């Protein structure tokens, strides 16, 4: 909390500084640091209680980042690609926690692809951020599963395989919130994160985050310059907190593209306000979301924004009909049945 009245505090009296983590050890200019900053801004703006948040990751450059934000939250740096199962267990043990996890394209698209798809299928409540740079940074520059076909890297030659589109996989896999963004678009990243953290279920944000050391050639669709030149936002996105009554906003005029504004109401009353920018994209239409991603790949365009959204289906804990008290907080009396109960069971074995 700030003693200096000139330093801005949030609804729970904390400063932005209070939401920071350790000093980053990533390469200077890494897009991942920009994303960490937006997580910090998001949590500060929303006044999130850090003790209610868990932050997790797998292994890789991206997976180092949870150490750099929300220093008062419990963090877990798991093993390569297997963060989804750890989040699944943690949120099952305590469904009152808010999980924010960071993964990379190698983490999610290769070694952890199976866990990624099953996490989506289970609708584990969490924000799943993919910091996607198309290359393995920590092992010094191998192609990842999202690397462009025909792309050439200095030591590893030409990539002959088609890339995996992790946002498309999320839509197909049953995620109810799928977004794509670009680390250079801080405003959009932050707005998407605010919406994602308010989503009940798995919210995937695939963020192209250029690797300044191993994959920043202009020919790569994961480079900073390519992202800047080819980014096509589907809409301007603005997050409106629950209960917030906006002053005069954009005038909504039906059938007047490209400036129509649509609102997507998240559970709990928050609203994502989307202002179309020339594409007639309705994120509530699954086939349109798939088509938009297919078209973007064909045209080499980096479409960004909220690509797909649907009313959340039950989360894993809800599906399992778990008790309202988190399992981790159950008292002994709820964990061990009575001696009489044991006697009755044993009687059935005589």
């Amino acid at each position, binding site marked *: 909390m700030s003693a200096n009245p000139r330093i801005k505090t949030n609804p729970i009296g904390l400063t932005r500084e209070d939401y920071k983590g350790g000093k980053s050890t990533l390469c200077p200019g890494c897009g991942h640091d920009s994303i960490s900053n937006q997580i910090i801004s998001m949590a500060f703006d929303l006044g999130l209680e850090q003790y209610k948040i868990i932050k997790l990751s797998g292994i890789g450059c991206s997976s180092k980042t949870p150490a750099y934000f929300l220093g008062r939250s*419990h963090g877990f740096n798991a093993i390569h690609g297997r963060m989804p199962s*750890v989040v699944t267990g*943690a949120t*099952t043990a305590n469904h009152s926690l808010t999980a924010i996890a960071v993964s990379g394209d190698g983490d999610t698209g290769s070694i952890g692809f199976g866990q990624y798809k099953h996490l989506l299928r289970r609708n584990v409540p969490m924000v799943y951020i993919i910091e996607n740079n198309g290359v393995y940074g920590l092992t010094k520059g191998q192609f990842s599963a999202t690397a462009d076909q025909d792309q050439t890297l200095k030591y590893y030659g030409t990539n002959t395989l088609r890339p995996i589109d992790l946002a498309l996989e999320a839509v197909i896999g049953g995620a109810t919130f799928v977004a794509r963004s670009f680390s250079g678009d801080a405003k959009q990243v932050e707005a998407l994160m605010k919406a994602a953290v308010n989503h009940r279920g798995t919210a995937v944000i695939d963020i192209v985050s250029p690797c300044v050391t191993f994959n920043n050639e202009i020919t790569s669709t994961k480079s900073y310059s390519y992202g800047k030149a080819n980014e096509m936002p589907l809409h301007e996105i603005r997050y409106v907190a629950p209960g917030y009554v906006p002053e005069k906003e954009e005038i909504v005029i039906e059938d007047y593209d490209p400036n129509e504004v649509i609102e997507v109401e998240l559970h709990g009353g928050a609203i994502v306000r989307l202002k179309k920018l020339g594409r007639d994209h309705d994120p509530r239409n699954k086939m349109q979301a798939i088509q938009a991603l297919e078209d973007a790949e064909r045209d080499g365009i980096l479409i960004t924004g909220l690509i797909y959204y649907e009313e959340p289906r039950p989360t894993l804990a809800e599906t399992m009909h778990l008790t309202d008290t988190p*399992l981790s907080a159950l008292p002994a009396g709820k964990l061990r049945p009575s001696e009489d109960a*044991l006697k009755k069971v044993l009687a059935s074995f005589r």
Partner: protein
Amino acid sequence: MCALNIGPSPRVKPADDGFIYNDFAFTVATKNGSGSQTSNNTLVYALFKMGIPVNGKNLFPSNIKGLPTWYTIRASKDGYTARKAVTEICIAFNQDTAAEDISKLPPGGVCILPSEWNWGHSREDVIYYEIPVKDLVKTVDINPDFRDRISNMVYVGAVAELFDIPQDKIYAALLDSFKGKTKPADMNMNVVKAAAEWARENLEKQDPYKFAPLNLNGDKIVITGNESAALGAIFGGVSVVAWYPITPSTSLVDAIMGYQYLRRDPDNGKETVAVIQAEDEIAAIGMLVGAGWAGARAMTSTSGPGISLMAEFTGLAYYAEIPLVIWDITRMGPSTGLPTRTSQGDLIFTYFLGHGDSRQLILLPGTVEECFEFGWRAFDIAEAQQTPVFVLSDLDIGMNNWMAEPFQYPSEPLNRGKVLNAEELQQHIEKFGTWGRYKDVDGDAVGYRTLPGTNHPRAAYFLRGTGHNEMAVYSERADDWVQNMQRLHRKFENARTLLPTPIEVWDKAAPKRIGIVTFGSNEDAIREARDWLAQDGVESDYLRVRGLPLHPDVAEFIASHEHVIVIENNFDGQLNQVINVDMEQRPPRKTSLTLGDSLPMTPEWVYEQVTAVVS
């Protein structure tokens, strides 16, 4: 090929009337999937209800339907329940194996088989009882759809008549099998009655074997080890189960789901146990790691191949100090091996599971009572020690029916270990000036942990598998690494006296020359063999290991005996190797006896082997 070992006939003496009462065994040979399980269980439960000590073992193939399967039932007036190498009676209901099954009978043995086979009496020294199975089933008014499966009840009826099992005991056993439902019980009983009546009218008893009520079973129960372990977990407060199906561990989680009702919150009807079927064993243990970190009592059950997939996460859990429980119902490896046969072959792999310098705590139940006890106790140990705890059972204990004393309600309250809530954390900081997740403030090598969701500004720490110091801060300093590993080593050493103590049968003041050491399900076979050896004048002391690392008593036992014989059911003598690694001083003489043939150990094998060694 018959899976049964053949050895010397057991020492059985007839009663004054010439009959042998309650001291013989059956082999029931059928085809997998033919519905014989109900018939076999009915015989076991009926004998149990007569008060006769009994044990049934299913020797089944890795197959849904069609391959040969054997079920052995042993009655023993002396309470021995190990598998016998020789069974006096063969119910040959699988034509494919009948010749070999009959050839394994001892002289004077009995063969019961369908008369429609027109088998012929291939051995003169065997007594044949032939029964018109198909014709008998046709006489009973039953739905034709059930006819094939129910035909096995014919041998139940014939056995009841030939060997004196009262029909009311058969019916009571059937009611148990069908959970009190009279309709299927009656349908099966009608076949039993028809077969018994036919046997009464058409067969002349020529063999010396009979059952007679004994009333030796008192309050005992009949249960499998996997069901016992599941009950133990339910009464141990398990709250998250994540698993991937694998024989022979599947029935453990099946049973947990069956007992979930015991833990349903009476206030709102909601579940206090989450059971997640994972996509593989890596995901299963990943879920346990997450759940254990977040404060749940988390467990899985698996077998050797699953354990191998769990290696990396196990190392992380060991190093990051996350409590969780893994049941390994061991089957015969390596690789897929014999997936439906028993073994004790995962001991070394599990003990050292993880990369680098890691060793795991292991509990070794040898009875179904211990499966229940270790079922709840494993959580207490895992949380107190903040580490994974493995429980190594095996297919023989896990999937077969065993008689047991009624389980004792947990004698100790739940031990949740060193977990600080917000208030306790504040007190801790005030007392010690700081809190470090991996700081050893009590000298027991176990730090204090906080759980995610603890509302205190200093509660959070960053958990990682990479190098860290005692404050849980990332560190690649050599001294931090060594300090941490030394503490983990101390923690491991301390566990020697915290795990279940060995079962010991010896007089420390006057030890015998021979000391036998074993673990797990070999107990019954060794107990019986030791009695036989004693009759031959070969006295022995006995110790059954129940945990790794080895309790100090094991070292004392080994050091106190002139000749130590380590008996186990794997090929490589894995417990013997662990003893070699763990004990500073080698005993003067130690012999490793290993079986590893995929079958439960028999007293005959133990007797022969020990006799050969000591002579």
